[in-house]
């Protein structure tokens, strides 16, 4: 595993020794989340959200498998089968509300996890692949969530499917045939519903597989940390178990408490009422909006209103896909050798600007397309692209970072976050050159 001082697994019980000699499964677990994985000792609570994302993936898979035992993927029966689950299946309402809100909470923890990575430079060498695999998981999550939302075959399911598959028809020539091929028809219908159900059942397991790659790639260099300084010796780390298992454990319990408040007391708060109306291909809802976790992208899509060389719709679709794809280039866009935003005064300001920017995009994406909200999302979307593709490379070239601490341990002891005692410390810039 990652560091020389990582302790090898030594089975204590005879049964475990017997098992370990034949199938080293205990060794694998010990090396992944046991005492065999040394972790920087200074991780803060923002580092808890990766485990939480894993927890919500598990919740979604378990509740989803049981829901699939009752769900009936047919345009005539899907809506009623969901209501049957809600009304007549034992505990069905709980399963469905957990699954429904679980999707939202999976996105909440994933967004926090992504922004933590953005602030602390977790995407930088040597963790570029960890970052990129994470983005692959995120893309798969979006596809899975979209198809899951279609399954109840309510009004928003139907019209959401109509709008989102309509993105493809923005591409000239090939677009419309691709859309028809994806849907298995000219509009969402039985063929689309059945294949979405099939893929909605498949993709979570693909996500689980990519999660394994994500963790595997992470365990080569080991976890990053709030100072962004590399681990130097054993003093800088703690074995994952028991310190981080205990820290993750209590935080997960507390987070599930918040989750359960939504599931049991505000189960429909994050959803849209129109999805309790059965799908009707002849009646378009007044405002078609996707689920909240797609709102920032929906705002970017709607922000393009002028046919400038290309049609506005094509601009919107290209920009929307690009807004995620550019994140794959982030390790090479941000050249600063300093990882943590704590030591990057200029970067830090732009980071918080980006957070506000994405929140504005999210708000505008959920609001009706009035001139005010469209105008606001046009400015916010312009900043989004400028941030990653122009500002970040410039900042990383011209910014003068603050002095970095000598080591993680000295940072822990002296609470060096903003300014350390500068005398003995090299600046991040000098250290890199």
């Amino acid at each position: 595993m990652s560091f020389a001082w990582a302790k090898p697994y030594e089975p204590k019980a005879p049964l475990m020794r017997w098992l370990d000699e034949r199938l080293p499964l205990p060794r694998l677990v010990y090396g992944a989340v046991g005492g065999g994985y040394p972790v920087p000792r200074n991780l803060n609570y923002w580092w808890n959200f990766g485990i939480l994302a894993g927890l919500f993936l598990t919740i979604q898979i378990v509740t989803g498998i049981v829901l699939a035992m009752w769900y009936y993927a047919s345009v005539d029966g899907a809506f009623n089968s969901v209501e049957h689950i809600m009304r007549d299946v034992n505990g069905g309402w709980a399963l469905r509300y957990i699954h429904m809100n679980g999707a939202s909470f999976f996105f909440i923890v994933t967004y926090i996890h992504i922004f933590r990575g953005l602030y602390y430079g977790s995407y930088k060498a040597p963790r570029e692949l960890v970052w990129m695999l994470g983005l692959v998981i995120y893309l798969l999550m979006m596809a899975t969530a979209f198809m899951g939302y279609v399954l109840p075959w309510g009004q928003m399911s139907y019209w959401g499917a109509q709008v989102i598959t309509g993105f493809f028809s923005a591409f000239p020539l090939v677009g419309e045939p691709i859309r028809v091929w994806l849907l298995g028809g000219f509009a969402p219908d039985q063929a689309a519903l059945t294949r979405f159900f099939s893929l909605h059942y498949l993709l979570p397991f693909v996500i689980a597989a990519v999660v394994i790659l994500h963790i595997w790639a992470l365990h080569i260099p080991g976890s990053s940390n709030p100072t962004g300084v590399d681990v130097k010796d054993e003093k800088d780390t703690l074995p994952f178990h028991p310190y981080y298992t205990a820290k993750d454990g209590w935080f997960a319990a507390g987070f599930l408490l918040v989750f359960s408040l939504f599931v049991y007391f505000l189960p429909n708060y994050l959803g849209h009422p129109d999805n309790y109306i059965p799908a009707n291909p002849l009646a378009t809802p007044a405002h078609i909006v996707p689920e909240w976790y797609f709102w920032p992208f929906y705002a970017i899509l709607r922000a393009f209103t002028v046919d400038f060389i290309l049609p506005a719709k094509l601009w919107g679709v290209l920009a929307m896909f690009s807004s995620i794809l550019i994140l794959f280039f982030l390790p090479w866009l941000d050249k600063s050798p300093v990882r943590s935003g704590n030591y990057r005064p200029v970067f830090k300001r732009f980071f918080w600007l980006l957070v506000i920017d994405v929140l504005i995009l999210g708000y505008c994406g959920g609001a009706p397309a009035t001139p005010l909200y469209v105008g606001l999302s046009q400015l916010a979307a312009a900043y989004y692209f400028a941030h990653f593709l122009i500002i970040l490379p410039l900042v990383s070239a011209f910014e003068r970072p603050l002095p970095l601490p000598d080591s993680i341990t000295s940072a822990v002891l002296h609470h060096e976050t903003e300014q350390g005692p500068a005398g003995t410390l090299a600046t991040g810039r000098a250290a890199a050159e």
Partner: protein
Amino acid sequence: MRYILGLVGAVFSVVLLISFFSNVSTYWSSPPPKTAEEEFHLHPKHLSLASDGPLGKFDKQQLQRGFQVYKEVCSACHSLSQVAFHNLEGLGYTEAEIKAIANQWPTEVPSVNPETGEPATRKALPSDRFPAPYANDTAARAANNNALPPDLSLMTKARHGGAAYVYSLLTGYRNQPAELLKEFPAAKTPQGLHYNPYFANLNLAMPPPLTSEGQVVYAPGNPKPTVDQMAKDVAAFLVWTAEPNLPNRHATGIAVAVFLLFATVLARLAFLNIRNQKKATLVRETGVLEPENQAKSKRAKRKAGIDG
């Protein structure tokens, strides 16, 4: 590579800014006309029901009154397809009462004549869902000036505002305000529609269903059946039809929350225990003379100026 990406970013940003300025100039030169909906649409009135809040339960007496309103007024046009007669147990009716209700229901259930195989109808049984008042959507539209009365099972979950919306809509019918007609002469309520400011486009095909006090006669011991009271009762009933498991959900939620709170506190204590051990180890490793290690409490640290 970075230059190409920078160019991509610049192109997107420039196109967005062009869109923005064209948006602003359009808005400036020809601001979108105000609509009657924007100015006269009202948000639902406040409605408080026994089922509100995290401890909310159903008021069965009220649900029975609401069911009576549905049966005698709404069911003439609106179906309730997700609810079965036997579900009325949740309202406190006995098995015999439910049998009688099903048996006397004015619409019969489609079936097949066992002798001829011809389509036929039979009296409803407790196991049946509430039969729809019309044979199909076309029949429903034909009888209602081409408007389709929606199914009411999920109504309070399928509209913004839920039960408060249903209550407001039922009590919100009025004459079109003179100011509206003065400002928007074209927005006069068309023939066959009815003005209601709680409805999204202000004009509703449904005629006012609850018009006079005593339209439904409540059993003795119940509140007076004013229009307001009947509207409240039927809104409460529709909360039940949309989610009959609601009290169960609340009770489970309280139990889950208490359990998780307890688990969180225990796990937190276990974590603090481990953290203190780790701190002690760190002190041994780094030497007791470290100022951080010498300060025993948060206050001592602040005094020594360690905790900035």
